[in-house]
């Protein structure tokens, strides 16, 4: 197949590598904090304090179309309280706190061994039951994306971002799960072609995947090596690389016949269908000079980051920054008492030498390096200039919304300007503008509708009772009558002035 090229990007190899380690099991923590949050809408707890739960049991039911929240080990619910969480940003959220009993008993769903002959609806409802969500970072319920048939299914194994190695470890060590999960996804999505994409630097994972694909071949399957170039693992960039197509602005990959799933999601789908295991854990890369034993860990959702770091040997004296996610797009955390969630693919504990800025921030010199590296083909320097002076019209005209916040521009900037932070602020500004405009629009519409209604009612009344509206013409008065009235008045005044009493009261005219 032809490999296309996306615009810009950065070669980041050698700058901050993930440690290629085998998958270790992260021990059961003394407490699991499971946030009752969902992508859309609220999640209601369906357990109460004191209840005993099994691993995979539902503890939170979403009100909207989001995924269920499941217990990630067996034990007792000891509290439902507000705690700090980190998705998508650090915030307070209601968490179910479970004290594991150490037995880790499963509440397994019945296995669907013969999935190729199972109806799609059965498989889709299984994914919903098992709480399967995308493990690439967006944590979107996997079933919803699969609802309609698709032309090309892409399995994203190109993790590209410095410091993340969990997908590579998964493909190396659990290649069969990934391949069988891919076959399952292709079956559900009725894809004509399934492309499993890896970066060309992942030779070990590639060999394992080739073997697995030979053992479990399925129709339309294809292994593709893509260039190791950040942000190759970005959904839009990967689609462009593999198909040459661009996801339309404000659109979805579905609009061009493509569906993207992370390889981790494929393995989770396979486990949910064939083994009946709900999605209660994920692989997390722990990396950086600030942690003693970096590596890849299988971590239950709700495990506090502090516990995970402890399993990885604890902090070294160099620990300077704690980041959830990759080194380019990850979220810096203020503390480590935050639970691991499905969207968290890596924990980076960076040392001061890695993050140290080489120079203070200077003004933009318009060198254009950001333009050269921007995968969205934006003009980052122009956007920055317009954002500084809050010229929202121009910001909109330069399509700030197309920014994927990959951080290439900020990394390339010789003036050390935190461009991504500016763009995030700009996007919230644009949303604010849109809200204000919407409010003004709806107010105006309300006002105009009311006026129209009043006018209409008035017109209707007029149409119903025409006679009442007609004005009565004033009675005609002849000149003779006027002259007579004047004469009468004059006569009265004359009578009064001459001292004669009058039976009429003599008010002045």
């Amino acid at each position, binding site marked *: 197949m032809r490999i296309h090229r996306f615009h810009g990007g950065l070669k980041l190899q050698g700058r901050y590598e993930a440690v290629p380690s085998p998958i270790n099991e992260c021990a059961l923590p003394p407490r699991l904090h499971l946030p009752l949050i969902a992508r859309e809408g609220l999640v209601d707890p369906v357990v109460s304090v004191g209840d005993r739960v099994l691993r995979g049991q539902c503890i939170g039911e979403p009100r909207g179309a989001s995924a269920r929240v499941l217990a990630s080990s067996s034990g007792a619910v000891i509290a439902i309280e507000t705690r700090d969480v980190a998705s998508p940003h650090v915030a307070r959220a209601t968490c179910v706190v479970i004290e594991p009993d150490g037995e880790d008993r499963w509440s397994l769903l019945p296995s669907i061994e013969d999935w190729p002959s199972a109806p799609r609806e059965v498989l889709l409802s299984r994914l919903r039951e098992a709480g399967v969500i995308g493990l690439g970072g967006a944590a979107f319920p996997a079933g919803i994306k699969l609802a309609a048939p698709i032309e090309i299914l892409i399995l994203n194994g190109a993790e590209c971002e410095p410091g993340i190695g969990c997908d590579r470890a998964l493909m190396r060590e659990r290649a069969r799960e990934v391949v069988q999960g891919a076959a399952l996804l292709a079956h559900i999505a009725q894809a004509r072609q399934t492309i499993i994409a890896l970066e060309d630097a992942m030779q070990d994972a590639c060999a394992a995947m080739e073997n697995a694909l030979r053992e479990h071949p399925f129709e339309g399957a294809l292994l593709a090596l893509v260039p190791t170039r950040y942000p190759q693992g970005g959904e839009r960039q990967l689609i462009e690389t593999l198909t040459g197509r661009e996801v339309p602005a404000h659109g979805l990959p579905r609009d061009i016949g493509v569906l993207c799933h992370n390889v981790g999601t494929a393995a989770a789908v396979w486990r949910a269908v064939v083994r009946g295991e709900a999605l209660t854990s994920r692989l997390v890369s722990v990396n950086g000079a600030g942690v003693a034993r970096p590596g890849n860990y299988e971590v239950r959702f709700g495990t506090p980051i502090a516990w995970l770091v402890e399993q990885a040997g604890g902090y070294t004296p160099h620990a300077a920054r704690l980041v959830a996610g990759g080194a380019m797009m990850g979220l810096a955390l203020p503390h480590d008492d935050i639970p691991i969630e499905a969207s968290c693919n890596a924990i980076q504990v960076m040392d001061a030498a890695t993050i140290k800025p080489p120079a203070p921030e200077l*003004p933009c010199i318009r060198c254009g390096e950001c333009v050269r590296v921007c995968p969205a083909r934006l003009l980052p320097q122009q956007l920055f200039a317009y954002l500084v002076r809050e010229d929202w019209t121009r910001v909109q005209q330069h399509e700030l919304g197309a920014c994927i916040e990959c951080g290439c521009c900020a990394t390339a900037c010789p003036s050390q300007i935190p461009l991504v932070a500016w763009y995030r602020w700009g996007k919230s500004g644009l949303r604010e503008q849109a809200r204000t405009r919407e409010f003004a629009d709806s107010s105006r519409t309300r006002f105009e509708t009311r006026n129209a209604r009043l006018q209409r009612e008035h017109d209707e009344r007029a149409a119903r009772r025409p006679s009442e509206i007609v004005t009565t013409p004033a009675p005609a008065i002849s000149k003779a009558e006027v002259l007579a009235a004047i004469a009468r008045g004059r006569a009265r005044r004359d009578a009064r002035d001459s001292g004669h009493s009058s039976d009429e009261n003599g008010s002045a005219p």
Partner: protein
Amino acid sequence: MSRFAVAPAPHLPARSTVRRVMGDVLIALVPGMAAQIWYFGFGVSVQIALAVLFALVFESIMLRLRGQKQTPWISDLSAPVTAVLFALCIPAWSPWWIACIAMCAALVFAKHLYGGLGRNIFNPAMVGYAVVLIAFPLALARWPSPEPLAAHTLGFGDLLHTIFSGHLPASQGFDTLAQATPLDTVKIEAARGYTLAEIRSNPVFGDFGGKGWEWIADWYALGGLYLLWRRVIHWQVPVALLGTTILLTVPSWIVDPDVNPLPLQHVFSGGLMLAAFFIATDPVTGAATPRGRLIFGAGVAALTLAIRRWGAYPDGVAFAVLLMNACVPLLDRITIPRVYGHGRRG
């Protein structure tokens, strides 16, 4: 519970600094500088030193007046780049106050009064050059003969005397030391009705441009290639500038080679090569978009040729660059690239 300081993503440090970018420009200028010193003597290095000194002084004063910190601003090397580019444009014997006035215009007026680094609309080096060129045309026309043609050269003491007193030592006459530049020669002789073949028999001409001049241009081009390799400049400006120069001069040269100079003569004369790689590529005052840069480079070439052909000045690179600087906001606006997901393949 361990606590950490937070910062926005990305968490990897930037790959370059302004200082490194400017430093690369200075490094890239070294071959051309060396060649110019070789052909025109140590006066060139004295001019460079004077210009850098004045530039730093004015930069420091303006930073203080604007309430900015001296570091890191003064060490970003942007003022020395401006100074060196200017110094390479003026004759080696120019009196010291030429550099002083030009650097004042460049740093105070063109740079800091517009808001300092990154906010200037016009190329500071070219503003400085244009100011002294218009104010003191005579001083800027006295180019010494390049090395292979020079019958006499000044000793170091005489050189310093000339620069700091403003006139040549009594023992030396200007005519024995200096010559009209190749571009001047073309202009003057063509006006007197000579054909180019006759004009080019003048010893100031070499293979393409002027003797000496053409080699200096080669070394500038070499430095330019270094900048391209280091990704400090983008290819669009030099390619558009040199390409347009050749494209526009070839037809007239084919039609009438007696009147219109060889295209390569245009490329290798005057400041065109320096402009193509070092001046028109100034990021701050140039276009921001790839297509904008193509138009910018082509515009500089076309205006330079127009001034050389019809203008009062033998070389018009500085004016061409300044005129195109003024067009940059418009260029940036009409050449916005197609954003991902919009249009064609969307």
